[in-house]
């Protein structure tokens, strides 16, 4: 059945696929993971702060984000952000933010919901004696979190955080709804242009699979190492 397939189309499209497409995908993944981790940690701290209202706000936010399909969030956000921007800045026209900024903000907000649950579990896994010892030395609440609790929570949760980032890496392909040239978008454009759908989508699948597999393998290695240290 592969008789009339032309795999050379892949070779010719490689620079475009990787320099444009994969660069975008990895940039989006990296920045969204970083932003999601920071925002998610803030949400986790809000939920664990003991202030009822803060905790409730964070809880509603997390539940809300987790009950929406990502595609819808991406889609709606893209159309809404210009108007939100207009409202916030008081400008006379909708603010144009561009597809990249819009999708980055979307992913940060969406992933934060998931990262916050991971970080919450991580913080709760630290025994109460640790923050007590830090307070007893005179560290403030903020310092205790920053220097004692969060580094340990982050380290304990690193394998789960990376696993979530692998999911994020795959999810970034959903930006195709905004016709952005991420890796899948680039493959899809070549596929349409040259009429080589099977070859290009097969290749895209292999690339996503390979990268995710290598990352998962790295996670397992890491897990083993962390287990020894503890």
């Amino acid at each position: 059945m592969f008789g009339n397939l032309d795999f050379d189309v892949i070779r010719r499209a490689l620079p475009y696929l990787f320099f444009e497409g994969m660069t975008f995908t990895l940039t989006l993944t990296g920045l969204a993971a970083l932003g999601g981790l920071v925002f998610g940690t803030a949400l986790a701290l809000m939920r664990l702060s003991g202030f009822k209202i803060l905790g409730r706000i964070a809880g509603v936010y997390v539940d809300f984000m987790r009950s929406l399909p990502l595609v819808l969030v991406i889609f709606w956000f893209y159309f809404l952000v210009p108007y939100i921007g207009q409202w916030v800045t008081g400008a006379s026209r909708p603010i144009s933010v561009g597809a990249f900024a819009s999708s980055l903000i979307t992913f940060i907000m969406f992933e934060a919901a998931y990262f916050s649950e991971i970080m919450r579990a991580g913080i709760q896994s630290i025994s109460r004696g640790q923050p007590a010892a830090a307070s007893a030395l005179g560290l403030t609440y903020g310092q205790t979190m920053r220097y004692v609790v969060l580094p340990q929570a982050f380290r304990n949760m690193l394998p789960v955080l990376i696993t979530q980032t692998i999911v994020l890496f795959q999810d970034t392909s959903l930006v195709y709804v905004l016709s952005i040239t991420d890796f899948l978008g680039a493959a899809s454009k070549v596929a349409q242009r040259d009429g080589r759908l099977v070859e290009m989508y097969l290749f895209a699948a292999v690339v996503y699979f390979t990268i995710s597999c290598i990352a998962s393998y790295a996670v397992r290695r890491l897990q083993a190492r962390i287990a020894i240290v503890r």
Partner: protein
Amino acid sequence: MIEISHVNKWYTPSFQVLTDCTTSVTKGEVVVVCGPSGSGKSTLIKCVNALEPFQSGDISVDGTKVNDPKTNLPKLRSRVGMVFQHFELFPHLKIIDNLCLAQEKVLNRSRDKAMAKGMQLLERVGLKEQAQKFPANLSGGQQQRVAIARALAMDPIVMLFDEPTSALDPEMVSEVLDVMVDLAHEGMTMMVVTHEMGFARKVANRVIFMDRGEIVEDAAKEDFFGKPRSDRAQKFLSKILSH
């Protein structure tokens, strides 16, 4: 140095952990707190540096009221050293960094000064060679000695100990007690929850016996070991001394 007066604490409205506790520790004094499990010893000692809140009564340390909302608690705690049953070293930091963290972040000492102080204290507890290791690579006795050094690095005016040797294997108890005895001989003010009656006999000035959240006995060491006035203290003593 420590004034505890009429402290009451409830965990739930129906469960009172501390009932009208009143005592004091003067400068240079070593006070040992003992009593059966669950009698509120840890809770009382944690009230002293406000790790646990309490509902009524007053505690002051060096004239500063810990239960005053206006009190700068981090500042107060930085002057009160505390050693925990389970060491509570920070496992993600090297030994030397365990000693430096609060010196740098709380006392704003320079890295060099903090390191020098840290190394000096490690040498004092006999662990200079372990400075670059992580806590998980040390034995329990070594970890507890590091924990004591970490507290001393803050130049505390008083040290609190909550059963510092009860999580240790028997052969490691004395290496920790030796450090504490030295401290006592140097004139450190200490409040020590412990069942090590040998330690109490050697360095304590007073012994406090707690039962069911109450201070049942608060006596000079000689009187306590001579003839405790209460039945409960007598029973407790005969039990742990028969071991």
